[in-house]
């Protein structure tokens, strides 16, 4: 059995926490009306913003609309971006709002981000199995992507969105709370439950079979 000491997951800066050196300059140029600078920012983040809006809305048409509206709003309100946070965090907040509006329009009775949730200790099954060092390597990339996205899609929106921002887009707990107008403890409790639910969903794919 390997050592039980866990390496810290986030010991080094996460990719999105490392602001690309040219970003403040690009934002300043875009604010000054230089359209190519804004286009560079769009090209940099369009795939991530589309993944975000698609994971929230679970609908391609809504995701595309929300993404377009997010970039257009970002451009229109660029003067209001004061540089206190990363540009990407600011953009994510706009995109989350657009995507939530779409989701609430389609499913008005389902989406409440501020309802009380329990802590999740009921989410751990008794039969716990090892996954091995790199369980994801047992699947082709397309299969893995399909497993990951369908597991996330099965989560309640309140958990899915917190997990999306915190563990996929790598916002901090505080940034996630700010983006969703939730308290930090509310983000933490949803994140715990989302992580445990996903662990359980992935377990059926990643647990080692008896003879492996």
């Amino acid at each position, binding site marked *: 059995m390997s050592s039980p000491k*866990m390496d810290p*997951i986030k010991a080094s800066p996460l990719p999105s926490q490392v602001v690309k050196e040219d970003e403040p300059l690009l934002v300043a140029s875009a604010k000054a009306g230089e359209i190519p600078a*804004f286009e560079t920012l769009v090209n940099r983040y369009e795939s991530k913003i589309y993944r975000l809006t698609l994971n929230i809305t679970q609908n391609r048409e809504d995701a595309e609309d929300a993404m377009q509206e997010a970039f257009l709003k970002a451009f229109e309100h660029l003067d209001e971006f004061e540089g206190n946070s990363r540009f990407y965090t600011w953009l994510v907040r706009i995109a989350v709002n657009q995507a939530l509006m779409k989701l609430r329009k389609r499913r008005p009775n389902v989406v409440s981000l501020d309802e009380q949730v329990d802590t999740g200790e009921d989410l751990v099954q008794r039969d*716990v199995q090892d996954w091995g060092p790199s369980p994801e390597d047992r699947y082709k990339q397309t299969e893995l992507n399909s497993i990951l996205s369908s597991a996330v899609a099965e989560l309640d929106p309140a958990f899915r969105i917190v997990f999306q921002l915190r563990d*996929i887009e790598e916002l901090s707990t505080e940034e996630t709370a700010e983006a969703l107008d939730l308290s930090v403890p509310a983000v933490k409790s949803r994140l715990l439950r989302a992580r445990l639910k996903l662990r359980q969903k992935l*377990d059926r794919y990643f647990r080692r079979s008896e003879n492996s």
Partner: protein
Amino acid sequence: MKCKTIIVELANYLDEDLDPGLRAEIEQHLDKCKDCRLIVDTTKKTIQIYCNSEPAPLPENTRQRLHEALQKRLRRARN
């Protein structure tokens, strides 16, 4: 410490958001409890797998529509 405490504190433990005393207690428990160790390890792997997953490239027609909409808006802003 009970296994339930490990679950309740799991996210804080993985995010290193615990005071050193509680962290040490959790690690003592993990030394002895294989099930909790596996839950911590597989939850950590769950996060890492998602964290390392790259977004699929934007579908080309979706990308084209985005840039057309932006061009239209940006041209208006320029005039």
